[in-house]
Each structure stands twice: as C-alpha cells, then as structure tokens.
C-alpha cells in the first residue's frame, strides 16, 4: 500500500472513489482528461487489477489473459447484436463466459507450474487469436472486427431508428463521460473486491501458495482449486474489462487477443508493482498514457511546448525530444521499462514509497532542526 498508515479499508475506498470520480478534473492538465482515455484507464485498470489477483498473489504468470479480454468483448457485442443495446446483460454475459473460458484454460494450464504454465496459457491465447483472425470469422468477423449492423435482430429492443443504435444503460447513452463514469463505477467495485481478496484468509492462502506451494499441500490445502479460483476470478476481471471496451466502443477485434495484448497487462502489472493493490492501476495508466499522448506529439506540438525557450535552444530541445515522441514513443516506453526495473525493483509503487520515505525523513530532520534551534534560543 502506498499509505501504510491508513489501516481502515473504508477510508481507503472513500479516497479511492473520490480520486477516480474526479479523474476528469485532475487528468486534464496533463492532457488525459478526455472520455476515451479516461475510459481506457478504467478498463485497463480493471484488467490489470484482475491480472494481479492471479500473478501478484499466486505468482502464476499467465501469458494468455488477453483471451478473456477478447471473449468478453465478443460476448458483449453479440449481446448488443442479438438481445439489446442495454449494457447490463452484456456485462453479465461477458463476465460469465470469460469465466467459463477461464475454467477450461485454467484447468488444463494449472496442471503445470512455472514457465510451463506461462507457455501453456500463451499457446491457448495464440490459438484463440489465430482462429479468431481467420477460421472463426463467422463469429468474430476476423480482421475487421465484430461490429453492429442495421439488420441485427436485437430481440429485446424495439425496431431500430435511423442509423446504428448506441449502447445505453436504461436509456443513458454510454459514450463520452457517461461511459467513463460507468467504467469508473465498475473499477471501484473491481478494486473493492480485489481489496477484500487481498485482506481475506483466501488471499493469504494464495500468497502462501506463491511463497511455497509444496508446503501448502503438506499443510493440508488442496492448492489446485485455489489456483483455479484465482485464475477464474482474474479471467472474469478480464472479461469484464473486455465487455467495457465493447460498451464504450462497440467493436471487437481479434488483435485484442494477440500475445502482445497479453504481454501488455503483464508489463502493466510489473511496471506498477506486482502484488500491490494500486500498482497495476498505475502501470495501466502509464502505458495507456504513453500510447495515446506521447504517440500523438509531433514537432509542431513540441515547438509549442518549448516555445518559452530561446529559439536556438528550442530547436535543439525539440530535435532531441522529437526522437522520443510521435513515432518514437515505443523507444520511450522501452527505456521506461528498463529504468523502472533497474532503479525501482518493485515498480512505480516502490518509487512512491521511497519518495514518501525520503520526504518524511526530510520533514523529520527539518523538524528536529527547528527544535534544536528553538532549544538554543531558550
């Protein structure tokens, strides 16, 4: 935890809720306060928090979690196509179906541990992706992605009006800020559940499995069901995230299931801090911020930002920074990964903790200084 002094979970939840709901306010100055990116923060936050329940607690590194994201998205879009544009059935079906997939994949993959487990999950993910991209096109619409059409049945909704309908929550349009707030509420719930799991006997048992699985067995625990439960929970989180992606933007593409997408959530979690409550959320935020904001910088933009510098310096600075933004944003991301791992083992959360400690020492030492001064005066 970032603030170890706060022991009361309800206080944590209250702060968390306040921070998430005011995100449009405090993210605007850094250029991230627009609906789509806010939605992405929340959605990938859920994805990473869920992934952390598996990886952070049990140590089982899945390289195939994007499958559940994809399954969630496809299920949600099919729910929009066949049933109704209301988002609730989509969320429920997507989460459940992702859970079913997680039971199957998890049951098989958890027969092995370590990197063998990782490769099993990766293999399932790659198979799903390759099939979704080509052979399963009738279900997934292949490369183009599954989308709404005018002649979808939508049996629970009345006849469609002009143009494609949009996703709604009982009439409330789910695009823009409304969509973000829906995702935000889901994020808060997801975070709450994760918090409870972390603080529960179940969570402690998962941690113990990570620490020494053999011993767990001789201590009287059947570890397989524990692992499978954690796997399914995190799969359902991914399914939920996938459904939210479809809700805020009703199109589901196969590339969501590619290994790079699975790898992305791994990177998010490690970058932020594996096994910490908030770390995955930070990781998700940082990677999505880079992807959306750094990639959109161009020289013109940089010149605006550095216009306060003298011209010659401005040109040099723009030339140098230009290598790291726009088409160079991958370079920055790669460097960031390296810097964080090298200097901050434990991820961003570790960095915050250190900064926190440093500040505290600073405050304390200045406090003592004042005290000494005061004493001398007397």
């Amino acid at each position, binding site marked *: 935890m970032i603030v170890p002094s706060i022991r009361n979970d309800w206080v944590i939840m209250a702060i968390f809720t306040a921070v998430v709901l005011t995100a449009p306010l405090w993210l*605007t100055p850094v250029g991230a306060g627009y609906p789509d990116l806010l939605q992405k923060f929340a959605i990938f936050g859920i994805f990473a928090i869920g992934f952390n329940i598996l990886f952070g607690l049990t140590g089982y590194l899945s390289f195939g979690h994007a499958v559940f994201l994809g399954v969630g998205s496809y299920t949600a879009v099919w729910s929009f196509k066949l049933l109704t544009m209301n988002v609730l059935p989509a969320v429920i079906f997507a989460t459940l179906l992702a859970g079913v997939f997680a039971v199957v994949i998890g049951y098989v993959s958890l027969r092995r541990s370590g990197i063998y487990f990782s490769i099993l999950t990766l293999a399932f993910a790659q198979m799903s992706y390759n099939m979704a991209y*080509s052979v399963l096109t009738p279900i997934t619409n292949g490369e183009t*992605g599954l989308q709404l059409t005018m002649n979808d049945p939508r049996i629970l909704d009345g006849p469609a009006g002009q143009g494609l309908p949009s996703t709604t929550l009982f009439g409330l349009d789910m695009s*823009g800020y409304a969509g973000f707030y829906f995702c935000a509420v889901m994020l808060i719930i997801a975070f709450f559940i994760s918090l409870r799991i972390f603080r529960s006997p179940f969570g402690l048992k998962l941690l113990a499995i990570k620490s020494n699985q053999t011993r767990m067995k001789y201590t009287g625990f059947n570890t397989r069901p524990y692992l499978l439960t954690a796997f399914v929970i995190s799969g359902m989180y991914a399914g939920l995230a996938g459904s939210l992606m479809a809700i805020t933007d009703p199109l589901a593409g196969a*590339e969501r299931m590619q290994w790079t997408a699975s790898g992305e959530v791994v990177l998010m979690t490690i970058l932020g801090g594996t096994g910490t409550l908030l770390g995955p959320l930070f990781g998700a935020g940082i990677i999505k911020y880079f*992807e959306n904001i750094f990639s959109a910088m161009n020289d013109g933009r940089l010149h*605006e930002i550095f216009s306060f510098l003298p011209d010659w310096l401005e040109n040099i600075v723009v030339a140098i920074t230009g290598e790291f933004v*726009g088409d160079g944003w991958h370079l920055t991301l790669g460097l960031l990964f390296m810097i964080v791992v090298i200097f901050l083992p434990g991820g961003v959360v570790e960095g915050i903790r250190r900064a926190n400690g440093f500040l505290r020492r600073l405050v304390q030492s200045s406090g003592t200084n004042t005290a000494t001064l005061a004493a001398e005066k007397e």
Partner: protein
Amino acid sequence: MSEDKSKISELSRRGFIKVGATAVTAASMPMFFVKDAWAAKDFRNNPGNAGSVKFGFNVPQTGAYADEGADELRAYKLAVKHINGEGDGGMLNTMKPLSLKGNGILGKKVEYVTGDTQTKSDAARASAKRMIEKDGVVMITGGSSSGVAVAVQGLCQEMGVIFMAGLTHSNDTTGKDKRRYGFRHFFNAYMSGAALGPVLQKEMGTERKAYHLTADYTWGWTQEESIKNTTEALGWQTTAAVRTPVGAGDFSQYITPVLNSGADVLILNHYGKDMINSLTQAVQFGLRDKQVNGKNFEIIVPLFSRLMAQGAGDNIKGILGTTNWHWSLQDEGSKAFVKSFGQEYGFPPSQAAQTTYVQALLYANAVESAGSFYPPEVIKQLEGFKFDGAGNGPTEYRADDHQCFKDVLVVRGNEAPSSQFDILKVEQIVPRSQVEYDAKIFGGELGPYEV
C-alpha cells in the same frame, strides 16, 4: 491557435491545477450526456467563430507500415501548407473544379494533430477518439490497412466526423462496410482485378492455370475473389487457392506444393511484409525460371506498393501488378504534386502519399464549396463530385458507395531501374470505364446523414 498556444506554455510555466480546473469546468460539464442535444445545424467539433480548424492525421507510426505512415504524414503536411496558401500550391493549381482560395478553409487556417494507428483497430479507434474528443478535429484521415479503415470509418459515423480513408484496398470499405461519413479515394480489389484482366489476357493468353496464395483475412479474401472472377472470366482455371497465416514469415511450405501442382501462374494475394517474403521466397524456389505446360511460369502480385516492393529487391523485376498511382505519371496534377513533394522532401511521393494528399484537399474543397463545416452539407458536396487534375485523369466520387473512380495503373517491376525510386514501370493506364462496377454488387448501406 493562439488560445491553445497560451494554454500549453502556461502549463509548462505554472502549475497544472488551475488551468486544469478551468478547462474541465469549461469543457467537460456541458458535454455531459448531451450527445443528442445539439441544436439544429450545430454539430460535433463545430469550429464556430474560431480562426482555425484542425484535421486529424491518423497514420501508422509504429509497426510494419510505419514507413508508409510516415509518407502519408509528409503528404498531409504538404496538403495543409497548400491549403493555407504556403509553398507552391501543388495540386491547387491543377485541380478543377476548385473552390479553395489558398487562404485556409472558409478563411480559417488549417492546423493538424497526429496519431498512431499501430495498424490495429483498437489503437486506431483510440487515436481517432482522442482527436475527436480532446483535439476537436473536424475531419480524420489516414491509415494503411482495410481493417483500420473500416474500424475508424465506423467510429466516425457514430461520432459524426468525416473520415477520408487512406490506403485501403478491400472491397468491403466501400462495399458491405461502407458508411455515410467515410470516403475512399484509393482503388479496390475489384478494380485491380478488372484492370489486370485484359493485360493478363494479352500477356499470358487464355489457357492458364492459376494458383493463389492468399493472406488469411478479409482483405486477402476479397482480393482473391476479385482476381479469381477476372481470371476465370478469361478462361483460366484455378488450380488451388491456399490461405496463409498473416505474418507467416517463411512461406516455403506453401510454395513447394505449387511446384508440381500443374499451375503455371502464381497469384500472391499478399501485402506488406507477407508480399515481400512470399515473393522473395517464390523466386528463390525457381518459379520464375520454370516452364510448365510449355509456358513460362508467371507470378502476379495484384496489389503493388512501390514503397513496400523495395523490400523484395530484384525479385520484383518483371512481375505484373496494379497500383493506385505512380510518381512517373505525366498528367498535370501528378507532375505538380511530385514537384512540390520532391522539393520539400527530396524524393518522390508514394501512392499512399498521393491518395492522402488528395483526400485532404478534397475534404477542404468540399467544405469550401458547401460554405459550412456541417458534415451532412460537406458529404453532399463530396457525393458525386467530379474533378480532374489530381492524377489518374477525370475522377468521380460515386454517391452510391463513396468509392472514387479513376484510371488504374497496371505496372511491372522494372528490369533496369535507373534509381531506387524507379522500380516500377507503368505498363498500361487502364481507363476508368473499364474498372467501374455496379455499387449494388457488394451490398452494404451508407447510413444516415444526421447522427
């Protein structure tokens, strides 16, 4: 412009919070749940009385098509210059009819924002949404694959922002996935097939057996279908049509069955890296030196891109294919564009650059003609718009499906290139009439003007 600039510099000088708070109360509150609450004639990202408008250039900056994306971006910057009356004006001097006056659009200066599609639908849509929601663009353009084009086009329809597609060749873009707000200047697989037909007949006769290797996704399938229709109409047989995984890298296991299949033509429905690899490897397997059924074995790459073809090196020599545009064209529009692009960047533009440059100009011109940025009015200007002087002869944006019709180039890999830019030779300019088709054959529905 000035408003934006002051905001940014203020940000970097002072704290974030103050500006942020005002920006949010100003920007986000009124947008709450009010998508349907636009007043008549008001619309998303209406520039109103602002002195400038923004275009969104959504191109691949990372991934396999990054070089094409970079070339698209160069063309866009040039187009913005020309629209704003800077530089030598390029096609503004040749395009007819033209309402643009070289003073921006409706007197407003054109600015732009850029984004990275990563050649992924999700990333492309996220980038497009940022442009629409955060940067307030009036139009989005770019892209280098059909999947992305269809995905972004669908989004733009929902959001009510016009999308001028970049490089996309699938029949679906203006077929079953066409949208009222999406426009494609680039040609498509059907037109490739139609243009190749007569040339193939002349070069290879009517007694041929074709073997298809097809990238296993929607674009590959539509191209395979279109080319098959054309060749079978010529009397060719199709020996086999084999689907290959995208990004297979090594295609040897798909090429060896060609050797003794009895086929005498290999058609590669691949693009980008797949095309480079499969062509390189097919040539290594000696297919070009082969004699089958008493005829020389031939390889055809129906969709050629000069930029990508460079990667195949000498292997493209003598290979037939089609392309949307080539810098060696001698019409006035092409010459003017090649000249200004060359002066700006020192090398000739690619077909991706030409199509995106023209798309930007076409949009700007349509707004100027409509006298308004109101999308339905702009769309009505673009629909059925006939123009000339933008390369490929007299051109029409067909109203029925938003597909541009113009001459198609049949090209051949140059046997003796004089430079690295001279690797394709225009074999024949196939007139537009020969590649036209009934818009109904691909189905789809454009959707409403008002969203």
